[in-house]
């Protein structure tokens, strides 16, 4: 029984939202399990915010359906256990942090008041001041208190770390881990991979409103082009060595500064076996950048949205 699959908290099935000019989403299917962080990755305008807002029924799908903890998203009760941090965060300026919390808990927010003070303390935010007098970063903190103080099964956080300094980004990461450990599901949107890399279990990549991949960070890493720098004992041997490496499928090799730079995707076996036939002085792994994977998703024709112009 312990091996049972985690419960699906958010079930998005074939959802299409036509919205404005280009900011809709097209036939998106995504399941978000409890106890995990799902990253939502895509450039600006790729539909991340629209997807999150369709879960909250702020925009209505023209096709498909969404269940939150088995409740249809059109039912207001679906939002009872969802916490939300909007990307474009605004509050009525004259209210203090405390008054805001009252406003949203009155609206059925289900805030856990015991958690409010400890959250405020951890994030270092004064909830007695009118939010209109706060800096952008501090308003973001009020939004975080609002989201994390809610007793929720699902947290939808739209670009949550914008405006936060690195120290607070770390505090934010630990907050996310705590709620995930407690069994909640977290959906985190970002346009940069580095924000999701350490936090997300899985990443869903959006391109022009379509979901082009849902993969674990490890799977994404495996997609990342790895790089090796090889130096042969005999400097003249680099030419035949480079030629042999280039002939391996999926491997690119070129000579830079009397070294061979080898770029490859997947496993390294063929490269090692080829190198074994030469006398090699050093092999240095330069590592692959996850951000490059993203660029592949965005530029590769294989991932281009189908049916479009």
């Amino acid at each position, binding site marked *: 029984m312990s091996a049972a699959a985690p419960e699906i908290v958010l079930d998005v099935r074939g959802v299409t939202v036509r919205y404005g000019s280009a900011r809709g989403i097209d036939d998106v299917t995504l399941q978000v399990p409890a106890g995990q962080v799902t990253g939502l990755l895509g450039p600006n305008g790729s539909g991340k*915010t629209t997807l999150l807002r369709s879960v909250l*029924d702020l925009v*209505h799908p023209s096709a498909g359906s969404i269940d939150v903890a088995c409740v249809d998203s059109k039912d207001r009760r679906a939002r009872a256990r969802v916490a939300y941090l909007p990307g474009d965060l605004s509050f009525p300026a004259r209210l203090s942090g405390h008054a805001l919390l009252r*406003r*949203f808990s009155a*609206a059925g*927010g289900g805030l856990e008041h015991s958690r409010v003070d400890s959250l405020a303390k951890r994030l270092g935010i004064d909830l007695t001041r009118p939010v209109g007098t706060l800096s952008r970063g501090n308003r973001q903190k009020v939004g975080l208190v609002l989201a994390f103080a809610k007793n929720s099964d699902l947290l939808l956080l739209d670009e949550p770390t914008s405006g936060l300094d690195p120290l607070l980004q770390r505090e934010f990461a630990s907050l996310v881990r705590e709620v995930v450990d407690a069994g909640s599901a977290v959906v985190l949107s970002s346009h940069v991979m580095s924000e999701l890399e350490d936090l997300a279990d899985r990443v869903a990549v959006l391109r022009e409103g379509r979901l082009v991949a849902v993969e674990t960070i490890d799977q994404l890493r495996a997609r990342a082009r790895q790089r090796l720098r090889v130096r042969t004992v005999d400097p003249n041997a680099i030419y035949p060595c480079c030629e042999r490496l280039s002939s391996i499928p999926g491997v690119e090799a070129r000579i830079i500064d009397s070294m061979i730079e080898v770029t490859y995707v997947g496993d390294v076996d063929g490269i090692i076996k080829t190198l074994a036939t030469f006398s090699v002085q050093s092999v240095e792994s330069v590592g692959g950048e996850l951000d490059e994977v993203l660029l592949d998703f965005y530029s590769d024709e294989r991932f281009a949205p189908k049916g479009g112009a």
Partner: protein
Amino acid sequence: MSALHRRVVREVMSVLVSDLRLRWRSLLWWTVAVLALSALVASFYKSIAGENAYEDVFGSLPESLQGLLGGVDLGTPVGYLSTEMYSFFMPAVLLVFAIGRATSSLAGEEEDHTLDLLLAQPVSRTALYLQKVLGVVIGVAILSIAVAIPVIALAEWSELKVPAANMWAATAQLFAFVMFLAMLALAVSAAVGRRSLGMGVAAGLAFVSYLIDGFGKSIEWLEPWRVLTPWYWYDVSAALTDGMPWGSFAVLVAASIVVGALGLVGFNRRNLRA
């Protein structure tokens, strides 16, 4: 039963109470201003009561202009109240408040990006809409009453004497009239998500229909169109003379409900802007 009752109250009242907390100061200042304006206008009556000069001047005006000014003479309490207070001045003051508040209640929150977080709570759009309507109703009711209070309180001294029941009838007429245009402003702005459009439609209708109703009293071909204007049904002279005109009150209320319901349908169907 009581748990269910509490839940219903919570669902229907939560945002309303929060909104009132957010805006009671502005409502207080509006109330003070309306009380002061009404007291001022009421106290002027003392100096002109019974003078025929006004009647003579009024009588010498062309009929169309008399119609636009309310069509009754200023020398009597009913004539003075309907012309100076109720026919245009106070409706205009209350409309500024009501249209402003009505359009800011949903479209304003949307334009200020504060609506998202509110509707991310387990509140239905219908419940939110009704709470916002109720917020405007409360504000307009308080200001309508604030118009009548100084008149009644100063009646002995100012000689501006109208039976209290008729004053309350006029108050109800003023309330229903202002609410109709406020409802139109709220409905249009909520259905399209633009404060300015709701304001424009309501203020534009108030102005154009005022001219149609006013000139329609003397211009024959305009006369049939008067029944389509809210000003026609805002029958404050009848209220001050004979008490509550239930028929026209019902027309204004029914029109408000229809307009409000259409706005709700539009608001429920729409994709909100982030």
